[in-house]
């Protein structure tokens, strides 16, 4: 008898506890599997939430012969709060929303300009939501971006995620995850940055591209950085991992395209004669990937030395311009220099600084760039 119990009891426990089934929650095809969420502020103070969801009819039964439609669907719901709006979604489709698969959170431009704080709590509090979800701003409304169709079998949220993750090899792209945004919005010494995405192309097959980087002050979108200024942002934040830029070489009448192979930025905050100062040392390892010239010449040591020098001048100038623009004109610190200063000189900060933004115009900085060309590619002579 005892042996039977020993055998049967584990079987019963195994069946009831380890089956992984939760019948009350319904089958996966009956869940609203959210891939992207768009948030737009309504004029009445409420919120308009656009959900991009997986078409579970198609993913669940692709060979049924019926026309199940696109791989993703989108729907827009309204409510006083995000939770209420998402809850309203189930009233429309009769499925329980599943947020754990969400990849993207998008805010409309107008919403971002008026402030994000009121819309973040739901995503921080909800245990289903990932802290690593990517956050972006739509150039127009979040609804337009989230409901953009990129083709019948294209997962739009997946494509947008790929675009943002291209930061690994394109220094004109910036991406930010939810936890990072919350950290920066909470900080008194740094401004949050989010990518701005734009929808273009045909209505049935939209193209999404990164337009610029939005810089926030407090929690409101204040200004944007574009193209090479995003490279500067990444370099000054020690986040640049790759990227391409072009320098002019007057001696050789050429334009040389350089790829950042490796980059390291060292920012040293100091207090010099009673004022805040930063020394920015950038070390670049570069590859020549193209030479554009009308007069062919042999790639020699002198050319490489001159190109290195031009690269150093270009990067130093780019960084100086951006520091001046952000610190002096915008009184903004998207590079987290304030966080570095606070960490290294907490006593000075506590005694002398009450508002980091007010100090920014008087901050001294010195940028030094060291560039080294490691590879010149396969060609020894320019064509």
């Amino acid at each position, binding site marked *: 008898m005892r042996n039977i119990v020993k055998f049967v009891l584990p079987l019963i426990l195994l069946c009831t506890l380890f089956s992984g089934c939760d019948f009350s929650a319904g089958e996966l095809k009956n869940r609203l599997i959210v891939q992207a969420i768009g948030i737009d502020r309504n004029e009445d103070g409420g919120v308009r939430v656009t959900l991009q969801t997986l078409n579970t009819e198609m993913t669940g039964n692709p060979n049924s012969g019926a026309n199940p439609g696109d791989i993703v669907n989108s729907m827009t719901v309204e409510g006083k709060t995000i939770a209420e709006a998402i809850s309203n979604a189930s009233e429309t489709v009769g499925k329980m929303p599943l947020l754990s698969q969400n990849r993207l959170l998008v805010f409309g431009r107008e919403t971002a300009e008026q402030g994000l704080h009121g819309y973040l709590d739901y995503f921080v509090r909800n245990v289903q939501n990932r802290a690593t979800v990517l956050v972006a701003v739509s150039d127009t409304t979040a609804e337009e971006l989230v409901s953009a169709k990129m083709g019948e079998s294209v997962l739009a949220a997946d494509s947008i995620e790929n675009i943002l993750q291209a930061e690994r090899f394109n220094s004109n792209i910036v991406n930010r995850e939810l*936890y990072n945004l919350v950290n920066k919005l909470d900080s008194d010494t740094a401004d949050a940055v989010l990518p701005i995405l734009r929808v273009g192309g045909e209505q049935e097959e939209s193209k999404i591209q990164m337009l610029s980087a939005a810089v926030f002050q407090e929690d409101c979108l204040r200004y944007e950085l574009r193209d090479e200024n995003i490279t500067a942002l990444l370099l000054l934040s020690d986040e640049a991992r790759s990227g391409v830029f072009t320098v002019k070489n007057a001696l050789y009448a050429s334009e040389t395209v350089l790829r950042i192979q490796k980059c390291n930025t060292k920012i040293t905050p100091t207090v010099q004669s009673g004022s805040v100062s930063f020394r920015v040392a950038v070390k670049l390892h570069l590859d020549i990937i193209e030479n554009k010239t009308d007069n062919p010449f042999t790639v020699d040591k002198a050319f490489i030395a001159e190109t290195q020098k031009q690269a150093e001048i270009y990067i130093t100038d780019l960084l100086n311009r951006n520091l001046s623009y952000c610190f002096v004109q915008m009184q903004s610190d998207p590079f987290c220099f304030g966080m570095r200063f606070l960490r290294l000189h907490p006593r000075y900060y506590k005694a002398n600084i009450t508002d980091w933004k007010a100090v920014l115009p008087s901050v001294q900085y010195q940028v030094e760039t060291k560039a080294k060309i490691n590879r010149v590619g396969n060609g020894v002579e320019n064509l």
Partner: protein
Amino acid sequence: MQNTPKISVWQLFAVLLLSRLLTLLTYTTLGAETMQNSDYFPSVVFAVLLILLFSVLLFVQMHRFPGQDLVDIAYYRSPAFSKCISVLLAVYFLAVALETLARLELFVSTVIFPNRQSAFLILICVAAACYAASLGIEALGRTGAVSLSLFAAAFLFIMFAMAEKIDFLNFSPMFYDGVMPSLTEGLRAATRSAEIVMFAAMLPRVSGNAKKAYAAWIAAFLFSSLTVFFFVFGGLGYFALTQLFPIHAVAVLSEISVFQRFDVLLTGIWILSAFVKISFLLYLVSAFLQKSFRASWKNRYIAVSGILISAVQIFFAGSFTGYFYTVGLWTRTIIFAVFTVLLPAIVLWAAKGKKGEKDKCETL
């Protein structure tokens, strides 16, 4: 005195470390004062110093009454006194078991199954713990050692996966608001270390030099706490403090290549650790009641304790969980000091001289 089954010092170390790591994993900012994240590092050092301070009488006990717990020592004074001490300690261990269960329930009901009742899981967990406790200390010692290995492996894996996400900018300056926040947090962490009382209770059941287990435990606690806080705050920064369970949040963040969401791994070892700790505490409750009351009722003591903590947790979950998380620091310190300082001091003082008399009688 009957022949007590014993475990090795390293098995004791494993069980106690697992128990303290569970407290660390379930750390929450709920009810705690907000402070700069880097202040958590000195707070761990302060916690260790305070634990050593709270352990002074434990060292005296180990030196003067080797291989004896407080109930044995109180027996030198009188059997009735010994019974009182055993009941007090049993109640304390029952309360710690209840707190462990409350933490598990809060975790399960907010993170794992936010939309459903956690009563079933609690019942299963307590039933399993009762069964494990009934198997005795040797079985628990072996389970603790295996569980600690699993725990360490899983945790190292999560930390390794987190390494890439560490950003030193996330660390705030240390002691920016003075030393008091760190000291307060250190005291809070020290008063959560019921392992000192558990260690004192285990002295007659350990073979080998128990001081080694204590030294290894405190060193491992220091090292593991510093490591955990480094990865939590280096990875998540301020965001960690917005989460109910920051250490669980960091597991969500860790990923290697296509392997993501290691929180499932953490959840598994979390429940395993809670199971070992509750089993161990139920065993201690039963062991102390057995010493002073009917010894043959071992399984009944375990069953009644299990039913009691399940019932309290199921029927009064909200109020008890809330109490454990919001109880004031000074109340917690007083309760902790009663069992680590006051009670041992009374017992040691009461037994002073009596042991000598008894030894003399036995020699004659």
